[in-house]
């Protein structure tokens, strides 16, 4: 039953984060909302039913890779944002 709750939560976060990305104009908010959307997708993937016992290690590996990739790209996006602000632009 707990898996179903978190599946719902994951889908909710994914759609919430996804839609907010297009609504917010400020770069920082968009990066945060994208991170939330990503976490939502990962949560949904992990919470989805399937596999015999315990948690599916392949799904865990996928999510772990996803988290690391998300942090790498968010880091670069933040530095770009800062650099752009320094040059006087708006993201």
């Amino acid at each position, binding site marked *: 039953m707990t898996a179903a709750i978190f599946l719902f939560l994951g889908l909710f976060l994914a759609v919430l984060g996804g839609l907010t990305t297009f609504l917010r104009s400020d770069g920082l908010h968009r990066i945060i909302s994208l991170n939330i959307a990503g976490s939502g*997708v990962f949560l949904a993937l992990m919470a989805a039913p399937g596999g015999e016992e315990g948690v599916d290690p392949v799904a865990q590996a996928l999510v772990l890779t996803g988290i690391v990739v998300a942090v790498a790209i968010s880091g670069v996006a933040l530095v770009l944002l800062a650099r752009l602000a320094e040059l006087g632009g708006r993201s």
Partner: protein
Amino acid sequence: MNPLLPALVAALLPLVGSILVWLVPSWSRALAVVTAAGVLVAALGVVNRVALDGAAMMTLGGWPETLGIGIAVDGVGALFLLASAVVGLAATAYGAGYFPARHPFWTLWLLLWAALNAVFITADAFNAYVALELAGLTAAVLVTLGGERDAMAAGLRYLLVSLVGATLYLAGVAVAYTATGTLSLNALMADSPPMMAGVLALGGLALKAALFPLHGWLPPAHARAPGPVSAILSALVVKAALYLAWRWLEVAPVAAEAFILLGIGAVIWGSLQALRVGRLKAIIAWSTVAQMGYLAVGLALAVEGAAGAAMGVAWLALTHALAKGAAFLGAASVVRAAGHDRWPLAAAHLRNRPVLVLAFGLAAASLAGLPPSGGFVAKWYLLDAAMGAERWLLAAVIAGGGLLSAAYLYRILHPALDPRPGAEASHPVPPVLEWSALGLALLVTAFGVVVPWARDLVGVAA
């Protein structure tokens, strides 16, 4: 010596190159050129192996297909890999004349190249995700290397769009994995996952391939990227997303109709914009949007099983990569000579540069699909497939699209032939810049003639 070694080497070699270039920046140009040569050899190895004994598939690490990551090469993948190798070599040579040795371009470009080749050989949905992310990240940062404000803004927008596209694609993969329990594309093709997986994945890929109406980010990014980067972006990076879209369309063929509609929109909208914009690189960037529409239409035809369409799309992708690469390398040389690319003002700098004008001319001929270029062969196949499948609207778009591209490409050639000397003094352009552009243009013309060996290549795939 397993058959897929050259394919893996094509992806690993640029990785090794990027590490060496980052560690020893002063030698980066030499190292990059050596890596480029290596990748070309690997790509040719793959092409002739596929031509000889057909498509091959292997799971890395020797694990069973349901567990490990599969890499596979078939006719179509071989052609894309060849395009990546050839355009990559030209871009590297061009970069050697354009960027200093201690410039971050080299590491980022080699990492991007590794990601592209990884996409072209992968047979695993999640592996494609990681490779696409690496490609998106490095490509977006390459756009910002220009350093000025609007290049930075275009790069950031491209990075965010790439992240959104990748998240959508990941959601599609997650749904497919949950439903079928496998990540291998071939297995996904067999027990087709729920429609939602295909829609999400193809949505993300359409965004990354800048398919109309999701193309907004492409023109500013490609037009403002420095020198060879715009050639790399237009010729190769958008193709990686398209290549995956081809694989996923086979998993979810129902989306083919949508690709046709988007494709037609792209051809029309892209061409109209290309006729209107006032900068040389913007014209060529919008031409990419239009040609991606062309490819999307061809893709849908190929997936629907129209005879000869697979050959047409693979050939169009290869010749478009070469022709677009030649056009952008030429445009970058014009910017180097004129200091700006406002059009037709900068055309004066083409006046006494026959090599550049010839490169633009041949590239334009191929993009417009005029014989004797490779573009004509591709257009012939696509038209043949469309007529065979009684898709009259598609046939009209394919034929008319060529005319539209001839119209906006003529905007480049027309002022270039004006004999009156330009007012601005033009800066010297190193010969390697012009000749790498011409090299690609000559190659795309040659590809118009050398078709037979490609036939059994794609025949293996189609």
